[in-house]
């Protein structure tokens, strides 16, 4: 199994505040990696570092390296817009554009000029919606407003939008926290299917979700990566006492 992302001695600062402290880990290709930890521990900050979304916040600074397929994404010559095509992101609250279902998915390929003809674009939209397990729900109403979809469908539309630009990594920041249990399970099933083709990193507050839906789990505490490993092992026999205390609800 290849390393898709390698994080080496990575630290991140909001001004003088060090939010991430000397992180070292690898994210395996086409596996699901879950990041858990209490609020404010740095897991979402770390997630946003993986596609340099934190660059949009003034006064921030990164040290160390994050390698995507062996190349440092923080190198000066890196085009962050292009980077975010390859490392896509799905957010906590579904955020479809106020456009049609079709135009939501077509937006990225159009802007990036990924297709030359209408038929090609239609194909990309269909494949992306199929990939997000939404095609059967919407194939007869692609021109309907995306905001007419229920929250679970909207989130799957956001996933379709992400995969339409052919990323290799999908970052998910608490993608199910605004969804009901049925919609949550459908997104988790979708994640498992997507992991055959994409590397997935998910931040979650739901430890049962991390336990059932991921292959690897990293536990963050106050900006540090306390423990990282096979999900089965982390949840059955964690090595670090702090990990044990957190996942059993004794601390957090």
């Amino acid at each position: 199994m290849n390393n898709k992302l390698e994080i080496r001695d990575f630290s991140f600062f909001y001004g003088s505040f060090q939010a991430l402290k000397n992180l070292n880990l690898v994210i395996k290709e086409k596996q699901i990696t879950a990041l858990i930890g209490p609020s404010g521990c740095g897991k979402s900050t770390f997630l946003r570092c993986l596609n340099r979304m934190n660059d949009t916040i003034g006064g921030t600074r990164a040290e160390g390296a994050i390698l995507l397929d062996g190349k440092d994404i923080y190198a000066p010559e890196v085009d962050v817009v292009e980077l975010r095509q390859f490392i896509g992101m799905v957010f906590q609250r579904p955020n479809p554009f106020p456009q049609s279902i079709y135009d939501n998915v077509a937006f990225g390929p159009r802007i990036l000029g990924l297709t030359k003809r209408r038929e090609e674009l239609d194909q990309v939209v269909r494949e992306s919606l199929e990939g997000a397990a939404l095609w059967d729900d919407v194939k007869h109403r692609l021109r309907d407003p995306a905001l007419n979809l229920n929250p679970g469908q909207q989130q799957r539309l956001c996933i379709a939008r992400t995969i339409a630009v052919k990323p290799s990594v999908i970052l998910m920041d608490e993608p199910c926290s605004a969804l009901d249990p049925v919609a949550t399970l459908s997104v988790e099933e979708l994640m498992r299917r997507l992991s055959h083709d994409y590397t997935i990193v998910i931040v979650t507050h739901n430890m049962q979700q991390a336990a059932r839906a991921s292959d690897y789990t990293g536990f963050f505490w106050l900006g540090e990566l306390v423990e990282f490993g096979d999900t089965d092992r982390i949840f059955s026999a964690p090595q670090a006492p702090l990990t044990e205390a957190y996942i059993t609800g004794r601390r957090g």
Partner: protein
Amino acid sequence: MTVRAHFDRKLSELRDHILLMGSRVEEELKLALEALNTLNPDKAREVFAADRIVNKSRFDIEEKCFSLIVTQQPAARDLRTIMTAMNIIIDLERMGDQAKGIAKVVPHLLKNPVPDRPLELKQMGEEVSRMLNQVMLAYAHGNIDLARVIARQDDAVDTLYAQVFGKIMNQMAQVSNPDKIEATYELLRVARELERFGDLATNVAERIIYLVTGSLEEINTDRD
């Protein structure tokens, strides 16, 4: 009471239930050995009654474990605690069955007494009683050093079994009366029940090590 404190209390109660079940099995074995030594059919019947209580304990505790799993979604040591409990109660219930098997021999021996019982049989009984007592102590205190000692004790039981087996086979070879042969064979059955009892106590010890360390470790590889 907080959710966590409530869960801790339930885990503590679970441990107490298992310790109680262990003490019931100890008592059942003691009754069975007394019934065998004195060829007392009333004592043998007490063993059967005691075994029914042990069996019921197993199912009661199993239900409690299911309830904790579904309501608490345990992880890490909490999960290992509950999984260990579910395994230990199976082994304890089987130990109860071994004791019952010993008591079942009493009517046969009453009809056809065997005067020369190998001394090793009594020693096996004492040894496995001690094993059960110690493994329950190890469980009560999460003492993995004590749990590992059980393996050596099981080696001693296996050695005694081999000796008993040899002696009983010799006895059977020297007896011509079929009823006497059958009665002598029943002693072999007792030895087998005791040897198995020792193996089950070793299983419990392995589970205790898993509970504490998170690693599954076979502590007696000579079992087969």
